[in-house]
């Protein structure tokens, strides 16, 4: 039996096609992008002279200038991350706690709140786009509020907020479900013991429930962060073609409208690095906390 399971030929038949295919379509292009990002121009047109310029594209990306919109785009993606972490996640947590602590219609609410998640982001964006153009102005009018000049998505100061809103709305259900699942898996006797000790409501939530679902919070946080750097569909559909307000959009425009392939490749690499750095940071933060808590626990036991 052991011989069958470690037969080299069989293993190759099982694993090799996938590994080769995956390497050719996923890994190989990433290294190619990395290589392109170090060139001055990719010979897409005949007669182009391309040579290695090392980090020039990356320096250009962050050289201040009126026509360089990339730093602003990165800033916007960080703004989305902040909104997601400090507004969307707490809101989702609030709903998850309400549901997990037992209300009438618990599973009905959970199922309904999750519906936006399964809908295509294109459909969501198109619907919100229509809302911004017809219903929302009417509502603003009837309340006597001023509508931003050029409409919600035409106005330079408001457009970024209103293009974020649909995806923030859409993924509340996802975070809610993840947190709800984790909350539900806390053993009942822990909650009961805490309740007997007089913890309830906010105290129970902040002292017992939220600390206990930390691993899931980490998943939610990295989902928010990485999602914000990769954010593309919703603002792309809402804001039309030529805008460069977010890193992924900027990369897309540079690549497929302006045909600056190597510069766009550098932006793509930057997005990947940003994702990796924040993933590592999250791991360090969460690991650190756990270790410190463990150390404290040990110290207390010794004392």
């Amino acid at each position, binding site marked *: 039996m052991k011989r069958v399971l470690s037969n080299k030929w*069989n293993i190759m038949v099982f694993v090799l096609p996938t590994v080769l*295919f995956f390497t050719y379509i996923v890994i190989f*292009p990433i290294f190619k992008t990395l290589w392109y990002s170090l060139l001055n121009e990719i010979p897409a047109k005949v007669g182009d002279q391309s040579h290695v310029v090392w980090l020039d594209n990356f320096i250009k990306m962050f050289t201040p200038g009126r026509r360089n919109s990339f730093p602003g785009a990165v800033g916007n993606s960080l703004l989305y991350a902040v909104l997601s972490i400090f507004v969307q996640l707490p809101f989702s947590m609030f709903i998850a706690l309400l549901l997990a602590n037992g209300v009438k219609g618990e599973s009905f609410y959970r199922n309904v709140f999750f519906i936006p998640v399964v809908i295509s982001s294109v459909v969501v964006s198109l619907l919100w786009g229509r809302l911004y153009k017809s219903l929302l102005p009417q509502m603003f009018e009837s309340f006597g509020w001023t509508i931003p000049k050029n409409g919600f998505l035409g106005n330079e100061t408001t457009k970024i907020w209103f293009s974020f809103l649909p995806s923030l709305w859409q993924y509340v259900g996802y975070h809610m479900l993840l947190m709800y699942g984790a909350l539900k898996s806390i053993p009942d006797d822990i909650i009961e013991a805490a309740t007997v000790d007089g913890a309830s409501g906010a105290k129970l939530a902040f002292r017992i429930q939220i600390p206990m679902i930390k691993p899931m919070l980490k998943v939610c946080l990295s989902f928010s962060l990485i999602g914000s750097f990769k954010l593309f569909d919703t603002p792309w559909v809402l804001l039309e073609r030529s805008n460069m307000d977010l890193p992924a959009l900027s990369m897309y425009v540079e690549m497929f409208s302006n045909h600056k392939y190597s510069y766009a490749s550098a932006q793509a690499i930057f997005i990947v690095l940003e994702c990796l750095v924040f993933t590592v940071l999250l791991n360090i933060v969460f690991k650190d906390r756990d270790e410190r808590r463990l150390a404290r626990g040990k110290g207390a036991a010794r004392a």
Partner: protein
Amino acid sequence: MKKKSVAGTILKQLFLILWVFLCLFPLYWMFTMSLKDTNEIFGTNMVGLPTQWLWGNYANAWGSGGRVSNYMLNSVIDTFATLIGTSFLGYMSAYGLLRMRWRGQKAVFTYILMGMMIPMHAALYPLTEILMSLTKTHWALIIPYVAFNIPITILILSGFIANIPYEMEEAACIDGSGIYRTAFTIILPMMVPALITAAIFVFLQVWNELLLASLFTTDSVRTLTVGIKQMSGQYQTDYGSMGAGLVIATLPTLILYMCMSGQVQKSLIAGAVKG
């Protein structure tokens, strides 16, 4: 236990109902929009039920005016082929990586899972170089969809395959079953729930994908997401038909969710690590 106050309960329910309303309103709006004419949508009757239920909008979007039937067919083909690809390759490699025994299997497993952390954006331009010649065919989407969804499929399968006892293989081996027969007639049937979990996750990813679909499809193989995005530009005058297109694009996922909401939720929890 402390008795819960009545006011608190009412407040909670009110809040939850408000959020239900905010979750469902865009859908309600979409369905009613799809049955109205442009005049109604633009002012005379924005929110209410349609005065006349114009089912003709659907016929228009599906066939005569729009091309939604075409987009739908393409999306179905691409999604279906992708699911076959990820299930087959995912199961084969998961079996080889996690059931069989060889040096370096952990390293290869990690190598593939690392692919999950890398966003598709990073591969975009080299992918165009590989796939540009295929944009008249379905392969231009199926190939990257399968490749990029292999890691999550393997990850979801790995959680399940670990729970199957090795005695299964031992018994099969003693009975004289070869490795392929063991993998496909004994272990595979036990992995069906895992394969469904992975498939639902991949289905939602692929069905709703926009970026690659907008780059790698020419007119005849256009998928729903790109198609309705284009329609929204074209149909500046006929919003009813556009609404119908949106409804048609949404129905498959919505029906899937309504039929098996628990399973869909499980799949998306399992896939959450993908980010």
